[in-house]
């Protein structure tokens, strides 16, 4: 089995299950409480499926007030709470413990207000990322962050993890597009932060909540910045026979003063898998870049000419400009189906480290060397424009010891990312997956202040308590909280 430890469940809480469920049922409608072990099992994991544990109970509220009522019960009985969006976290952010109550936001599905004149939308946070843009489509607007899981993932999860996506090179990530939240604290108190006005004097608590991985509060409503849709967009596919040249091309495009909406990278291992799966017509070469530019036809042509000039100087083996909507879709189809295509090759571990763009060529070379050392194949597919890498380590879950080897390889890659000036996670979050690597990036003091902030928001450490911070570092905080 896998290597990440979770704290032993509190036997006292497990023994009090009937009392806890009854207390929830006393203040909440029966149809939003799940306590049958057969049914709670559906919530035993998120998209990090190597780790599983069914919770004590699950609550799926429809209103902020129901979230608050559930929190008050858990707070009163000192029961840990695991916030959950759609359960698409790749980092185990929504992994329960046996002594916890999962509070899921998936039924908070109302669109509350669309105001294109003031450029915002207000939603309940259980709406999916893609449905927010879908709501705005007819008005000519969109919501910019676009994580790969956008069909399923919820705004609550996006806020929790500060989600990004392929197009954040130009538009930023969730924190840059979040104007306000209504949220529930661990005590059950409801607090509003921010709103449609641009920024607010006073401490930027909103910036602290975004990306806090369910450690501080559960966001139940969100005010999101919306943008007018571009007139058009066009992807270009550029193939190179070396990873380093592809990396150089990325750096030159960025240096040139152009700001494409996206620059995506795929290596040969990934290209072969994608070609077999999606038949996107990708060239057989060592590295492919997908660069997308936006604007009117004229603007697109002008940007394409510049990118063509930059790429030609580096002798690409392929430079393919999409000529129509079908070709655009084909170019993106391969990239968007990359994870699915890789899944056909076997099990994989998806990493998420970020490195400075200038260090991409070196990092790719070192990952190749580490792959040989660990004896496991790796594919690279990632957001090159901002250095957010997603190496996929291939392994066989049925081979004893293979997962552990893959995890060890993954840890080496993430250490490498930190060593070249980057970080452990660019958009997936720490969760449990990268929890024990935090000491590589942060000193004890760096983590202490973060845990002290949690002390201030959640004095009893009830919200997602065993995540983000290595257990030995959080132990004094959790023990103090338990007293």
């Amino acid at each position, binding site marked *: 089995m896998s290597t990440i430890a979770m704290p032993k469940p509190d036997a006292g809480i497990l023994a009090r299950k009937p009392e806890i469920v009854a207390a929830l049922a006393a203040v909440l409608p029966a149809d939003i409480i799940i306590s049958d072990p057969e049914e709670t099992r559906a919530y035993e994991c998120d998209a990090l499926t190597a780790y599983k544990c069914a919770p004590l109970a699950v609550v799926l509220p429809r209103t902020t007030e129901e979230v608050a009522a559930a929190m008050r019960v858990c707070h009163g009985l000192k029961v840990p709470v695991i916030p959950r969006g759609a359960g698409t976290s790749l980092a185990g952010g929504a992994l329960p413990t046996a002594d916890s109550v999962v509070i899921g936001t998936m039924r908070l599905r109302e669109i509350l207000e669309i105001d294109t*004149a*003031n450029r915002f939308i207000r939603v309940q946070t259980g709406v999916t990322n893609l449905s927010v843009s879908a709501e705005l489509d007819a008005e000519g607007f969109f919501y910019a962050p676009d994580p790969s899981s956008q069909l399923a993932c919820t705004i609550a999860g996006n806020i929790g*993890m*500060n989600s990004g996506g392929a197009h954040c090179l130009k538009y*930023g*990530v969730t*924190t*840059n597009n979040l104007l306000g939240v209504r949220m529930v604290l661990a005590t059950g*108190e409801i607090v*509003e932060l921010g709103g449609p*006005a*641009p*920024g607010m*004097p*006073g*401490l*930027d*608590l*909103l*910036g*602290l909540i*975004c*990306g*806090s991985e369910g*450690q501080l509060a559960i966001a139940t409503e969100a005010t999101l910045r919306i943008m*007018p849709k571009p*007139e058009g967009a066009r992807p270009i596919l550029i193939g190179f026979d070396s990873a380093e040249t592809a990396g150089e091309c990325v*750096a*030159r495009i*960025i240096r040139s*003063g*152009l700001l494409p909406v996206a620059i995506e990278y795929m290596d040969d291992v990934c290209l072969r898998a994608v070609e077999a799966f999606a038949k996107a017509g990708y060239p057989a070469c060592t590295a492919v870049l997908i660069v997308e530019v936006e*604007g*009117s036809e*004229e*603007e697109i042509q*002008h940007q394409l000419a510049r990118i063509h000039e930059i790429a030609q100087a580096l002798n690409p083996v392929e430079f393919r400009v999409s000529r129509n909507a079908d070709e655009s879709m084909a170019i993106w189809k391969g990239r968007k189906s990359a994870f699915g295509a890789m899944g056909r090759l076997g099990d994989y571990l998806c990493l998420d480290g*970020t490195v*400075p*763009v*200038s260090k991409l060529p070196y990092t790719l070379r070192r990952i190749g060397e580490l792959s040989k050392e660990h004896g496991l194949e790796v594919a690279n597919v990632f957001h090159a424009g*901002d*250095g*957010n890498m997603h190496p996929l380590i291939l392994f066989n879950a049925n081979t004893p010891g293979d997962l552990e080897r893959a995890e060890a390889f993954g840890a080496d890659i993430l250490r490498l990312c930190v060593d070249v*000036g980057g*970080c452990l*996670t*660019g958009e*997936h979050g*720490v969760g449990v997956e990268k929890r024990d690597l935090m000491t590589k*990036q*942060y000193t004890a*003091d*760096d983590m202490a*202040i*973060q845990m*002290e*902030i949690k002390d*201030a*928001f959640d004095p009893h450490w009830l919200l997602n308590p065993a995540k983000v911070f290595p257990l030995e570092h959080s132990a004094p905080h959790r023990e103090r909280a338990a007293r």
Partner: protein
Amino acid sequence: MSAAAHSMPASATAPHDETELAAFIAERHAMARPLQITGGGTRLQADGVEPQDQLSTRNLSGIVTYEPGSLTLIARTGTPIGEIETALAAEGQALAFEPMDHRPLLGTTGTPTIGGIVSANVSGPRRVQAGACRDYVLGVRFVDGRGRIIKNGGRVMKNVTGLDLGKVMSGAHGTLGVLTEVAFKTLPMAEAQQTLAFPGLSVAAAVQLFSTALGTPFEVCGAAFHEGTAWLRIEGLEPQVVYRRERLMGLFSNHEIEMLDDAASRTLWRGLRDVQHLAGGHDPVWRILTKPGDAPVIASALEALGGQCALDWGGGLIWYRGPADASSVRKAAGAGHAFVVRRAHLPATVIFPAEPRAVTDLSRALRKTFDPAGLFNPGLMGN
């Protein structure tokens, strides 16, 4: 408030590195003796702080790393903004949030530093399109109220490793710690810009024009208004600017429009950025942040108190210069958030607007976490 009150006294403590700063703060923590933190001293401060209680970041100066190809710049917080802008301009890049220089408006004389800009989350006209200072902070180093050296975030454009303290340090006005180093995301400087000027508009007509313009895909990156004229700034590659101008002129063909070329546009927006249009006089100057659609009602309530208003950020920011007392301004601002930029006769206690009780409680708890002895800028930002 005079310029002299803001110049740095010779006796202020000015540590030369993080270690020296940390030792100094640890000592102050043990004594529980408060400090006033200053960068270049160009913005307003609380009253009555003795020179021996002033801490200056002026010796924590210099660019640490600048990698144009990675769109990243790291600087120590005492670095003058001018030094950073010069280094960026040499590579065709800029800080997209276009920080204001407060000196013309406040009549101060110091040198604005990057630490001061981050501490006050100072963001100029381009915020309407590009975001605020805090959106460009990738990572920070600071010394907290216990004298601990803390780093958070990093130097890469995407980073969700742990809590994001760079955001909460931005705009904290030094109340959470003394910033020593900040990593920024830089962006290419637009190759060209032009401005469309619309004379003869009311506030309401201007806000409506802004709303229409900012709802187009033409990436309007400046939407300001003063004395009957509304301005829209467009930027980009040369042909993009031409295209966008033509489309906007078509869209607003029922308006009288004057065009400002690149040079005239740059001069105009520098003035608007620094609020030079409200620089004269002796009355207090306020910033009111609001939902843009509420700006006409608020502006007219403010002008009824005497004084005048200007708009930026498409109406999301109202500048007000006038004689009114703080409670009248806040009443006129309604749901908007009114913040004092030029104090004049107003007391330091009214600079920040009141917040909902739950938010105040969280903010207090946070300040106690970062600064348990209450050392940093007491009295400046609530209590």
